[in-house]
C-alpha cells in the first residue's frame, strides 16, 4: 500500500552509501595527485 513511499524513503540510505563510495573513489585520485606534487608524506 505504501510501497512507493517506502522505496522513496530507502533512497536516503542509498544516497549515503553512494556518497561514501564516491568520496573514497575521488580521494584516491586526490591522494595520487598530492603524492605526485610531493605534498603527501
Amino acid at each position, binding site marked *: 500500500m505504501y510501497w512507493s513511499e517506502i522505496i522513496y524513503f530507502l533512497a536516503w540510505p542509498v544516497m549515503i552509501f553512494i556518497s561514501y563510495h*564516491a568520496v573514497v573513489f575521488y580521494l584516491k585520485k*586526490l591522494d595520487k595527485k598530492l603524492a605526485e606534487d610531493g605534498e603527501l608524506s
Partner: protein
Amino acid sequence: MENFDMTLIDWSRGQFALTAMYHWIFVPLTLGLTFIIAIMETIYVKTGDEKWKKITKFWATLFGINFAIGVATGIILEFEFGTNWSNYSWFVGDIFGAPLAIEGIMAFFMESTFIAIMFFGWNKVSKKFHLTATWLVAIGANLSALWILVANAWMQNPVGMVFNPDTARNEMVSFWSVLFSPTAINKFLHTVTSGYVLSAVFVIGVASWFLLKKKDVVFAKQSILVASVFGIISSLFLVWTGDGSARQVAQVQPMKFAAMEALWDGQTNAPLVAIGFLEKPAPPKTEGQYQEKEFAFKIEIPNMLSFLAFLDPNAYIPGVKDLVNGYTDPRTGKREPSYSEKIALGKEAITTLKLYKEAVASGNAEEAAIHKAKFDDPDWRNNTFKYFGYGYYTEETKAGLLPSIPISFYSFHLMVILAGHFLALFIVMLIFSLKNRLEKMKWLLYVGIWSIPLVYIASQAGWVLAELGRQPWVIQDLMPTLSAVSKIDASSVQITFWLFAITFTTLLIAEIKIMLTQIKKGITGGH
C-alpha cells in the same frame, strides 16, 4: 475574529518563529556534519591512517559544540506547543503527540547514548565499536528529524485521522498513513538533504580559510574533496526531492504553490518565473480585499510550472484569484469552491458541532443522533467538515486567508537560486581539488568562505516558505493559527519573547566564538 486577541496571536507566532529559526540554525549542521564525520572515520578505520583520525576529531569537535545548542533550542520548541499553543495541542494532540514522542526517544536515547561514546570513547572502545557509535549518532540524529518532520507534514496535509465530536479532538486512525504520507517522506528527504548541503558548504568554507592561511593544507584539501563530493550528491538529491515537494504542495496546498510563484491568474501551460521582482502593491479597493502585486520584471521558463506541478506542460495551475473566487479546472472539469463557499461550509461544520454538544448536554438523544450522523458520514466529512477552519473567517476578514505573496515568492526563489550556486561551488571545488590548484584560486576560496552565510540564508528561506506559505493554517484547512493559541496574557508572551531572543542570541554568539577558537587552533596546531 473579534473574539481573538490579535496582539497575543502575533506575539505567540513571533515567539515560535524566533525559536524555530534559531533551532534551525543549529540542526542542519548536525544532520549533515555527522554523516561527513562518519565517512571520514570509516576511511580512518579502513586505512588505519592516523591523519584521518585527527581530521575526524577536528570536525567532531565543531559538531559537538553545535549539537549541544541545537538540543537546547529544540526542547524549548517542544514546550511551546503546550505553553503557547494549547488549543492546537488539544485539537490534534492525539496525532501530533505520537511522532513527537518517538522523536524524543530517538533524540534522547539513541542519539545521546551513542554521542557519549563518539566523544569520550576514543581509545576506550575498539575502533569498530567507535565507528558504529558514530554511524548510529548520524542515523539517530536524522531519524529524530524524520519524526518531527512527519508531525510537521501532517499539519500541512492532515491524513490518517478522524474527528471525534464527543471530545472535539482529532484522533489517529492510521499511523502508517501519517508516517508514509507522501508529504512526510518528501519533507524528510528534502529537509535532511538541505542539511547535508549546508554542512558540505560549512566544511568547504572552513577548509578554504585554512588554505588561505596556509595552515593544515593537506587536511584542508582532503576535507574540501570529501565535502565537494558529498555536496554534489546531496545537491542532486535536493533537486530531486525539491521537485517532489513542489508537486506535493501543488496538490495539497495550492494557495502556497500560487504564492510561491506570485501567480494571480490561473492558466494552462503555466510558465515558471526563474527570476522576478514584484511591484509595490496597489492599495486594496475595498476593506478586507487582498493586495494584488504585479511583476516589475521577470524572466520565465515556458510551461515549466505546469510540468513541475503535474508532470504535464499543459496542466492547469490555479492562481490566487481562482482559489479565492472558486474555479473549474478546464481540463478535468473539477470545480473548486470559492473562499466564500468554504467559509459557509466551515461555519456549518462549527454550528453542527455546537448543536451536537448542546443536544448532548441537554440530554436530547434524538437531536444529538441527527448531528452525530453527519460526523459519521464520509461525504459530509469530505465536503463540509473538511473546511472547518474556514468557519473562523467572514467575508470581511477573508483576505486573512491568504499568505504573504512577496515573502513566499522571494523565499522560494532565493532558496532555489542559492541551491544552484552551491551545486556550482561543489563542482568547481571538486575540479580544482583534483587538479591540486585550490591554493592558487584565492577568489574561489573566498567564495567558499562567503558561501557559509549564504547557505544559512537559503536554509532559513526554505523554512520561511514552508511555514509562512501555509498561513493562516496551523492545520491545513482545519485549524487557523489564530484559534490554536493559548488564552494567556499577551504581556507574558512578550516578556518570554525577549528573554528567548536575548538567550538565543547569546548562545549563537557563544557558539560562533567557541567554533572560531577551535578552528584557529587547527587540526595540528598549524604544522
